[in-house]
């Protein structure tokens, strides 16, 4: 982060706080959507329960690394996928909506730097998603009997910022592609589909053929799920998860700066072709 950006951090925090206040103020108007979402969550939780009963009843060597805990395996798979979705699509979706609503032009016309205007929503979304994930895990423990007795907090504390940084890098690439092509971002769709297939969301990656497992290793979600499952289900320490931590560090170190440069280019293109206000 540059010195100028650090100096503007208090300003960004004010923007973030104002954004959160505005979102909370708007929430009152989305009561139906909230209840529909809650209903959807109930259905998903029920599906997971029966799926885990079905799979958990069998002796499955692929689940041995997770102590046969398929419920924990699949719950973390879905939470990781949602986290990736927030990271990869959060900023892009926000830009798309702001372009369509017409707010983007009004916001970037203010003295706040574009990174402040566009950075607040993903930070908020990550915070909400983290809280929601924690609530889901607690709910799964209380209602579905998920065994979380071996959580390694040190691994978890290292994992979360690394996962957020890696997904944010992808998010910047997705946002840049959204601004450049003015469509819902192709990066998000490709990453989302590949990750669901190859990162071990529903099934352990050990069931995949070797070459597909190799392809899966180039996806951040594969490593994110490895460290989350290791930390939450089997109490693996940072040393045990070193390979995945290093992979996430590389993803964050490469994707974040490349994404930032591409995003700055996309913003400049938007000022050249006038697409801040149309889509």
């Amino acid at each position, binding site marked *: 982060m540059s010195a100028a950006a650090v100096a503007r951090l208090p*300003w960004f925090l*004010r*923007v973030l*706080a*104002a*954004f959160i*206040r*505005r979102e909370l*103020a*708007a929430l*009152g*108007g*989305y009561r139906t959507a909230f209840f529909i979402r809650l209903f959807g969550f109930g259905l998903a939780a029920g599906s997971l329960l029966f799926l885990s009963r079905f799979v958990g009843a069998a002796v499955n060597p692929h689940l041995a690394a997770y102590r046969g805990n398929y419920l924990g395996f699949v719950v973390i798979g879905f939470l990781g996928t949602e986290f990736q979705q927030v990271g990869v699509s959060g900023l892009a979706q926000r830009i798309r909506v702001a372009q369509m*609503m*017409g*707010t983007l*032009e*009004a*916001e*970037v*016309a*203010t*003295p*706040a*730097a574009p990174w*402040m*205007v566009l950075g607040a929503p993903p930070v908020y979304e990550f915070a909400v998603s983290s809280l929601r994930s924690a609530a889901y895990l607690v709910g799964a423990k209380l209602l579905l009997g998920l065994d979380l007795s071996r959580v390694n907090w040190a691994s978890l504390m290292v994992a979360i910022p690394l996962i957020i940084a890696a997904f944010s890098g992808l998010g910047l690439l997705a946002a840049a592609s959204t601004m450049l092509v003015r469509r819902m971002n192709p990066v998000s769709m490709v990453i989302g589909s590949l990750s669901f297939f190859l990162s071990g969301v529903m099934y352990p990656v050990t069931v995949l053929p070797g070459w597909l497992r190799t392809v899966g290793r180039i996806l951040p979600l594969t490593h994110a799920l490895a460290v989350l499952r290791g930390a939450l289900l089997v109490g693996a320490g940072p040393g045990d998860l070193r390979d995945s931590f290093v992979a996430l560090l590389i993803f964050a170190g490469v994707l974040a700066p490349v994404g930032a440069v591409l995003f700055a280019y996309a913003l*400049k293109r938007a*000022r*050249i*072709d*006038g697409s*801040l*206000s149309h889509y």
Partner: protein
Amino acid sequence: MTEHPTIVVEGLGKVFQSPAGLREMLRGRLFGAPVEALAGVSFTVARGEIACLMGPNGAGKSTLIRILGGLLLPSSGHARVTDIDAGAGTAEFRRRVAFVVGDERSFHFRVSGRGNLHYFAALHGSSVAVGRRRAGELLERVGLAAAADRPYREYSRGMRQRLAIARGLLGDPEVLLLDEPTLGLDPRGARDLRAFLRDDIVRGAGRTAIVCSNDPAEARAMADRVLFLDGGRLRGESAPDRIEAELGL
């Protein structure tokens, strides 16, 4: 008065290149045919002056005002507003120059007028306390104090325009760029808003303004000088009382 202009535009040009359609892409082209929106536009606006940009739809008014607001980069020439290059996109530029977007989609529909202003005050760097005070003052000033806590979606067209003006004043800018500020208002509402903008917001506060419009009544009511744009070129200028003669109406 014209010795030290607040706005200086020299040889400004803008060419848009739309993305290629399928036919162009099959021919190996990435872009469609270029569209020249502005060409060789030059003028100045003195400090404290209200200039009105007039011209038919597609004349280039919105393109020009967006370049002056730093939201669009020119293809050629340059524009300086308060001695800062409009293309530089600095925070100081955006503090001094307010682009008042008439687009009513530019606010959050489910949030109150006051809530919307609080958010934009934060984007101007105001603390919560300062933002609240400033929003309250401005809502009072634009006549929206009584409706400040109603959701924006319940606002009438005129109220939305007033809220856009309040938002433009959050940073106490030196220059206001107003794009069709009374578009869609009834005649009485338009008349009142023009008088308020001219007397209170611009002249009363010593500001400089450019107003885009294709309504002669608006130009007469607000402007000191009228600039005529057509086909992206500046065709001339006149005093507000000579608009009809210039346009041959």
